[in-house]
């Protein structure tokens, strides 16, 4: 069997990235939007090649790259997310004095890394994907060259990311030394013959590395600084992309452990504590934030905690549904922040949002829907996503963890609604003008609202897809 069907999407994507990079050199400044169209075209081709593989379990390189339906589903989510980020970036880049070509091509390359991560069960390949993603991400975070905070974000991200990568590599070496394999599904079984300390140390190092990348407590410190400093569309990309891929890897790695009998209690207890700490700390610190980008960063730490519950409960369906929903919420919320940015300036303080609700009813209304959904109110997708994750976790006996999660989301209600208070119930001190000359951004916002409501009210089709995909995973 030829490797090309399975490789097709990746080839299209990286090819697209290179074409964009090349075209950048030949396009005049006023025609740079063509780069965005080119990138979108590359995404469409990638998606088209991917759709044909649904249900076929295509493989390449002796199963090193395996496009099962979970991989494909996540790939589609990631493609949608990247398309949204590109559309959001179109107006933003020109105003913030960034280079178009680098933004689009780096984004596509980062996406390629993500796709590799989700479509492999082999830890070395996953690591390769992770590094592709990381190198592109460091550069993306620093794209606003004239802003010191953006540079700081890039450097911080780079240092911490390198640390995490070193952790993962060392852990992989230990695991490989003990188990003789790096296939995620086999490590657990092989671990039975391993020295327990070796198995545990290896797994712990790998998990710690991924916890860095996912921003789980206690490895979360970089996240608020990076989200605040990076250009807002890039933050929107960070809030979803790496999380989706990272949790997919965790699920693939840990599910065999839950099913086998080896050394799971220790791993389980540690992850339990990490999930609880992420939820509590994320919510409590978010309370103190006056900057919305930082607030969303801390809220994403809490959300990572919720998703870890799904991993702990072995709930693939809940996790994928949560991610599908988080795609629209996270990107939508950052999109609303972009609507308030102007040439050379971003307005992301709580005070900047005072009175937005009455002066710009559409932006206020859309942002409110995202916030209310993040807070977990029905009938939006945010409620249903939490509902599925929490109810499965309770069914699997994790009542205490769900209680912590529920209390943490009670705290989150307060800080999400505080933004609504500012938008609708406070008089503005200084008036911020909204840039309405940005149709692609509003397209994204409306699509996100559509997604949030669709997933909240009529998610049956998406759920059917997810259940089908997950059933093939085991």
């Amino acid at each position, binding site marked *: 069997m030829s490797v090309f069907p399975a490789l097709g999407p990746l080839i299209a994507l990286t090819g697209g990235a290179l074409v964009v990079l090349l075209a950048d050199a030949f396009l005049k400044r006023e025609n740079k939007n063509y780069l965005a169209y080119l990138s979108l075209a590359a995404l469409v081709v990638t998606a088209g090649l991917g759709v044909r593989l649904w249900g076929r379990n295509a493989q390449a390189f002796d199963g090193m790259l395996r496009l099962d339906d979970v991989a494909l589903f996540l790939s589609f989510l990631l493609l949608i997310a990247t398309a949204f980020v590109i559309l959001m970036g179109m107006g933003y880049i020109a105003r913030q004095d960034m280079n178009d070509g680098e933004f689009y091509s780096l984004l596509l390359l980062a996406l390629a890394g993500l796709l590799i991560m989700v479509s492999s069960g082999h830890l070395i390949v996953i690591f390769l994907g992770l590094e592709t993603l990381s190198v592109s991400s460091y550069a993306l975070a620093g794209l606003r060259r004239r802003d010191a905070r953006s540079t700081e974000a890039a450097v911080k991200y780079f240092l911490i990311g390198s640390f995490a990568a070193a952790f993962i590599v060392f852990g992989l070496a230990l695991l490989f030394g003990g188990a003789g394999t790096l296939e995620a599904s086999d490590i657990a079984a092989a671990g039975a013959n391993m020295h327990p300390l070796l198995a545990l140390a290896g797994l712990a190092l790998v998990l710690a590395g991924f916890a860095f990348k996912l921003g789980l407590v206690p490895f979360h410190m970089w996240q608020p600084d990076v989200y605040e400093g990076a250009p807002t569309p890039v933050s929107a990309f960070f809030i979803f992309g790496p999380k989706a891929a990272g949790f997919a890897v965790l699920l693939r790695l840990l599910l065999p452990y839950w099913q086998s009998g080896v050394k799971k209690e220790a791993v389980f207890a540690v992850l339990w504590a990490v999930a609880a700490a992420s939820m509590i700390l994320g919510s409590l610190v978010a309370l103190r934030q006056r900057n919305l980008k930082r607030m969303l960063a801390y809220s994403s730490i809490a959300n990572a905690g919720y998703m870890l519950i799904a991993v702990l409960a072995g709930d693939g369906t809940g996790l994928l549904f949560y991610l599908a929903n988080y795609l629209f919420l996270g990107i939508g919320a950052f999109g609303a922040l972009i609507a308030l940015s102007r040439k050379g300036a971003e307005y992301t303080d709580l005070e900047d949002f005072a009175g937005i609700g009455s002066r710009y009813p559409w932006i206020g209304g859309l942002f409110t829907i995202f916030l209310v959904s993040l807070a977990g109110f029905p009938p939006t997708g945010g409620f249903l996503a939490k509902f599925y994750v929490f109810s499965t976790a309770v*069914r699997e006996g*994790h009542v205490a963890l769900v209680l912590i999660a529920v209390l943490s989301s009670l705290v989150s209600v307060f800080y999400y*609604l505080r933004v609504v*208070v500012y938008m609708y119930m406070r008089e503005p001190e200084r008036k911020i003008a909204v840039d309405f000359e940005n149709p692609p951004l509003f397209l994204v916002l409306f699509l996100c609202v559509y997604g949030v409501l669709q997933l909240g009210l009529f998610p049956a089709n998406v759920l059917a897809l997810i259940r089908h995909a997950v059933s093939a995973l085991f």
Partner: protein
Amino acid sequence: MSIPRLSLVTFLPLAGAVLLIFLPKENKRGLYGVALAFTAVTFALSLPLLVDFDAATADPQFVERTNWLGFGLEYHVGLDGISLYLVLLTTLLMPLAILASWSYIRVRLKEYLFFMLLLETGIIGVFVSLNLFLFYVFWEAALIPMYFLIGIWGGKRRVYATTKFVLFTMAGSLLMLVAAFVLYAAYFRATGTYSFQIFDLYRLSLSPQLQTWLFLAFGLAFAIKVPMFPFHTWLPDAHVEAPTAGSVILAAVLLKMGAYGFLRFAIPLFPDAAARFAPILAVLALIGIIYGGLMALVQKDVKSLVAYSSVSHMGLIMLAIFAGTVAGVQGAIYQMLNHGLSTGMLFLCVGILYERAHTRLIKDFGGVAKQMPVFAAFFLVAVLSSAGLPGLNGFVGEILCLFGIFAANKVWAALAVTTVILAAAYLLWMFQRVMHGPIVNEKIRSFQDLNKRELFYLIPVVILMFWMGIFPGTFLRKMDASVNQYVNRLKNREKVFVARPIAPPLPAAGARAGRAK
């Protein structure tokens, strides 16, 4: 296929809200016209439900049931004798509340009407849901519009009041959500199938310990909503700061969601735990009755006086529910309607005063009756109805409640009677200070009596108060079957399924999650 009448009543206001988005915001008459038309048609559609309601059966009627998300998460609605009148109360009061907003709401009218209509759909949905999941969705969804109604159009401390309101309610309902998950899992363990349908869940037999925890979680959510002492502190803030129509809906309908929750969920789902906690809850209800009454006596603000009277009255209703006798439960439901009408009307009257005087402090008034004789008559009817004068609706409800409580526990009944005495004291004293005496404030001389619009929304309530006071049978008989079944269910707890305890949190179970379909 027949017409989905209940869904029509539930979602018609939502359709109106969506329509409002597309209307120009300058057109005040047009916006009000649409909102009024939609609420009025909703009311008109809900009336035939009362006529066609079959009093002979206790089973839910007008049932609609379709699969929504699978795994027991269904769209399942229906009406029985317990929920029937609460739906009608909502549909009746909504158009009146919107009429009462005409001169009160001056800014952002379009959003205001949008949230009012959204609120109506949420509240009706709560009362018609027969699926715990659906109930929770509506329960939470109704919170958001109220949050905005208080937060944008409220008084000076509106942000504090509305945030407190939301956080209190959410704290209770999130714990209830966890309890619902446990229940859902227990049902799955017992039967191997998923269900959130309440009549399925009624048949589930749970261990005493589990019942206790679940009852506490459900009970807390509902006790906050009612509100029962000591969870009542959000209520005076929310009521005082809310705009008139918001207070009306809050007092008349939203509080009933809590009492209804006890009747529909907390008590029948966990009858043993409910029986065990009944004495404690009864004491809390009694404290609420007396404390609310005493607090109402010393209030300087008319609106917070009415708010504390709600605490007292809801205490009586809760006590009657915990008494668990047929008369008590019927009285409680009847008294919920009465309280909705009388307190709703009191808030309307306070709103009318406030629009003229721009103050609600009792000391700023005096002698208003001289300037507004017609209003004085209406206000007096509301006061007397709330105080339980025979011939008006409040009397029937209170006497039924007290009969029911007396049958269960004579000491409770003796203490509960104080509600009548206290109500008469604080209401009549307030009426005397506001309406009679010399005119101390020169502004009062310029007060206009009721205009046509105000008459239009007060008259239906007054007619209904007399009707419910003189011919209570027309209303009570439709409840009989459902209330009897409810009480019987408590007496003979026929539980079919035995739930096994939840497995310990071991990852071994995790493997099943992905596959368990």
